[in-house]
């Protein structure tokens, strides 16, 4: 490894050393504030390094054969870093009011972010698996972090078993593909496929099939979605936010990279499978969300549907398709972080504010929070003036350009079904209620951080909805 390679890896260095630093710091003295500060600063420092150094074209390079630092990868790393930063910021108030030891949480969060970062820049099965496992193992612990709660345990175990299971599928798929092509590098596999023409041997097909199962689990698309609602419900709200955004987004980014490297769009069977997954996710996600009365579960099912929308953009392919995926990810991240941020903000000592009833009359007790949450919900529903609208517009535009009329039409139908449950939450917030659930108040400064984060997310949401040009140019320039 040359010196240039090492410098190139700095974004990953910063994260791993931050984890170690916290590790030592905990052994000296447990102090929530200090550790929180280290976490936040390391994410910020990492991001600054990324935008000031790594992003320059002359500094972008590949580290053969595992990693590739290109625009797309760096964009996604940036996204993951900012997401983790926001998750960390809204975790402070959330964990401050809880009994458990708080400090290890941040180590796990940093490691999960590290795993996701490796995932989005990997170009080789080995680095893919490495990133994925760092991410997943951290997530097992994060999900079950509040271990005194029964549901948290249950969610952790469920995720552990299913994720391990899906990793096994993934490994087996990789092995089969390796056996046929003799390579684990994405472009090599692509070359092999090109050389062999359009015929795919059965073993290869089986390999890809197993890969899709593994990826599908991580993305939580139908029919591999069973874990999503339970894990969303059981995990602490900030962790749920992380799973919904960084973990799933990283996987999507990887999928895009892999699919383009192997020129997947020429295989009708694969496109067909993904189209089927997209359609099933959209319909089933939205339909199951209709009857829920737990906000976390509603958001879980809605995330299944949103992954379906993302797959439409993914299937559209081409430049517009990748742009649409990237923009949609940004919009979806902002929105999802905002919604879970509000959920965490309203949670009290005993439990998360997850029942619909907890939101009754929110407009009257906390008007600003209610307005911010409405903005998030409208963005999820894809209503103009919000980032979600431009994202959905981008996806539909990409779909129409590639003549995916069926998928686009289904997307539109599902947007309407989705509206129903988003409005339901809003209607409950606007309902007048005499009695308001009062949470035990901590020191107001603790909430300042959360309020600040939420305010920034809301402003970004509306800014992206009104003036998306900047973000579009950024994405275009970077890809």
């Amino acid at each position, binding site marked *: 490894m040359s010196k240039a390679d090492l410098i190139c890896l700095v974004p990953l260095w910063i994260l791993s050393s931050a984890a170690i630093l916290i590790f030592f710091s905990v052994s000296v003295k447990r102090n929530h504030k200090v550790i929180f500060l280290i976490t936040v600063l390391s994410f910020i420092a990492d991001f600054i390094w990324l935008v000031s150094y790594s992003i320059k074209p002359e500094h972008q390079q590949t580290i053969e054969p595992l990693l590739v630092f290109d625009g797309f990868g760096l964009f996604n790393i940036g996204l993951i870093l900012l997401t983790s930063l926001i998750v960390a910021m809204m975790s402070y108030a959330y964990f401050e009011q809880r009994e458990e030891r708080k400090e290890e949480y941040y180590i796990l969060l940093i490691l999960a972010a590290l795993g996701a970062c490796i995932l989005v820049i990997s170009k080789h099965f080995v680095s893919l698996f490495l990133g994925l496992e760092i991410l997943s193992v951290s997530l097992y612990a994060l999900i079950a972090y509040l271990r005194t709660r029964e549901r948290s345990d249950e969610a952790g175990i469920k995720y552990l078993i299913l994720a391990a299971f899906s990793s096994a599928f993934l490994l087996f798929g990789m092995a089969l593909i390796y056996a046929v092509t003799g390579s684990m590098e994405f472009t090599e596999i692509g070359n092999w496929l090109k050389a062999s023409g359009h015929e795919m041997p059965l073993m290869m097909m089986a390999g890809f099939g197993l890969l899709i199962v593994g990826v599908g689990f991580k993305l939580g698309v139908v029919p591999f979605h069973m874990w999503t609602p339970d894990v969303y419900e059981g995990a602490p709200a900030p962790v749920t936010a992380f799973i919904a955004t960084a973990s799933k987004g990283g996987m999507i980014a990887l999928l895009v990279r892999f699919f383009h490297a192997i020129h997947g769009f020429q295989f009708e069977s694969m496109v067909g499978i993904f189209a089927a997954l997209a359609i099933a996710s959209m319909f089933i996600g939205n339909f199951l969300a209709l009857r829920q009365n737990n906000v976390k579960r509603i958001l879980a099912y809605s995330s299944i549907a949103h992954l379906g929308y993302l797959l439409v953009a993914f299937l559209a392919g081409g430049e517009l398709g990748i742009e649409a995926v990237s923009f949609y990810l940004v919009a979806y991240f902002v929105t999802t972080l905002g919604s879970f941020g509000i959920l965490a903000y309203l949670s009290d000592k005993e439990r998360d504010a997850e029942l619909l009833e907890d939101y009754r009359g929110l407009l009257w007790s906390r008007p600003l929070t209610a307005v911010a949450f409405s903005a998030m919900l409208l963005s999820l529903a894809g209503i103009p003036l919000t980032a979600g609208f431009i994202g959905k517009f981008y996806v*539909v535009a990409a779909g129409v350009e590639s003549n995916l009329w069926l998928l686009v039409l289904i997307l539109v139908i599902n947007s309407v079904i989705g509206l129903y449950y988003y409005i339901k939450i809003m209607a409950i917030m606007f309902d007048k209620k005499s009695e308001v659930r009062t949470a035990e108040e901590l020191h107001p400064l603790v909430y300042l951080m959360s309020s600040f984060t939420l305010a920034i997310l809301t402003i970004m949401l509306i800014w992206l909805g009104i003036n998306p040009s900047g973000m579009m140019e950024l994405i275009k320039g970077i890809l």
Partner: protein
Amino acid sequence: MILPVLIIILMAGGILAGLASKWSAAAARWISLFAVLADLSLVIVLWIESGAKLVATNSSWLLDYQFPWIKEFGISFHLALDGLSLLMLMLTFFLGVFAVLISWKEIQYKIGFFHFNLLWVLAGIAGVFLTMDLFLFYFFWEVMLIPMYFLIGIWGHENKQYAAFKFFLFTQASGLLMLLAILGLFFIHAEQSGIYSFDYFQLLGTSLSPTLARWLMLGFLAAFAVKLPVFPFHPWLPDAHSQAPTAGSLILAGLLLKTGAYGLIRFVLPLFPSASIEIAPWAMLLGVIGILYGAMQAFSQTDLKRLIAYTSVSHMGFVMLGVFAFNEVAMQGVVMQMITHGLSTGALFILAGGLYERIHTRDILQMGGFWKKMPFMGFIAMVFSMASLGLPGLGNFVAEFLTLVGSWQANPTLTIFATIGLVAATAYSLRIMQKVFLGPEALQHHDLQDLSVREKIILVPMTVVIIWLGLFPQPIINTVKTPVKQVVESTTQKPVSSIQSVDMKGGTHE
């Protein structure tokens, strides 16, 4: 530059009113009032200035403002004003002022948020009437939707959430179909010309194959037919209208429905002329069914606001009939209908709201003989019921007469049925008067007070305008002459082949 200012005033006014309500509720009301009044005076000045220009020049566009917005997709903030938009804007701000005034006493909680929503609905509507960029059009189309949802859902009557829900789902679903059609048009145009643009004037020239044109037109039609509403797409309307607060009903009936009609005239006919001709007989048929069905339903309602809501279904049938008759006379009638229906139905909703404030019911079976106690209100109600049934001398008569004269040339049979609708209108309009203001006195209401000064300030100008429109409709007709002519020409001057194909199908189009 004046065009974006019109919208900015409303949006900024809304935000200001929302903020001001923290200190004083009255401030929020006054800020909103001044914002809408400022807009109203601006467009009236524009109208007076434009008088000579409209007749003299051949171009129908008075003002044009363009500013690039999302360059990646060729979306620009493009606003333009012609006679039709000008009239619609005047109606918007005229009724907007009254919407603020009528809420002065009625709305007592969340006053800041109410006025924010009210002004943003108006901003969305003004945007819809002005924009010449299809993406921006969809944008404003939605901007007027969400505040309206809040208006109904928060300040409405007992069944408000159901009504707001239904309204939202219907309009949103149809709006998304329009978005698909807009995108389809966008990419087809880009393929043909290589220019990525959502600009109306760019897209006008797109040549489409008949099947494609039909599908894309249906996308647009879906949105406008739901908004208008055309017969099978109307179920949201009675609920939304009857559950909304008075200002909401006023804006819904007076303005939102007009955006559907405006969309038909501005977008459907010029963008898809031959497909429109193809569908014309069916559209007219639906229009006529709407006229008769709406009238019948109106006659059988006991909820006063629901009754008035169904009269809208009936009156908007005339719009459908007139638009798809493809001649200038009918189109003039449609524009008149849009304005006069906005005024007359708006006024009826204001009266119904006033009655509700006094006796806390909308059930007309519990009303009766109110004329004795409230002669002034009775008089105003008489004027607007007569307007609603199409009495000569009032604006609605001119509108319906022109529409029927025009549609007779296109389709005599349907016109005859539409005329029957006028008779039905007489029945339900008289029923309002009979049940509420005449007949035996309802005993339980003793302390009825006649119209207050504030209510008179609202209703007297409306009465004056509706009479003025009935007696001197010429200024209105002059203002929209060129735009209407162009729209009609765009459908008749298109390739001869498309007209021939209609002839073969037995259309009676001339």
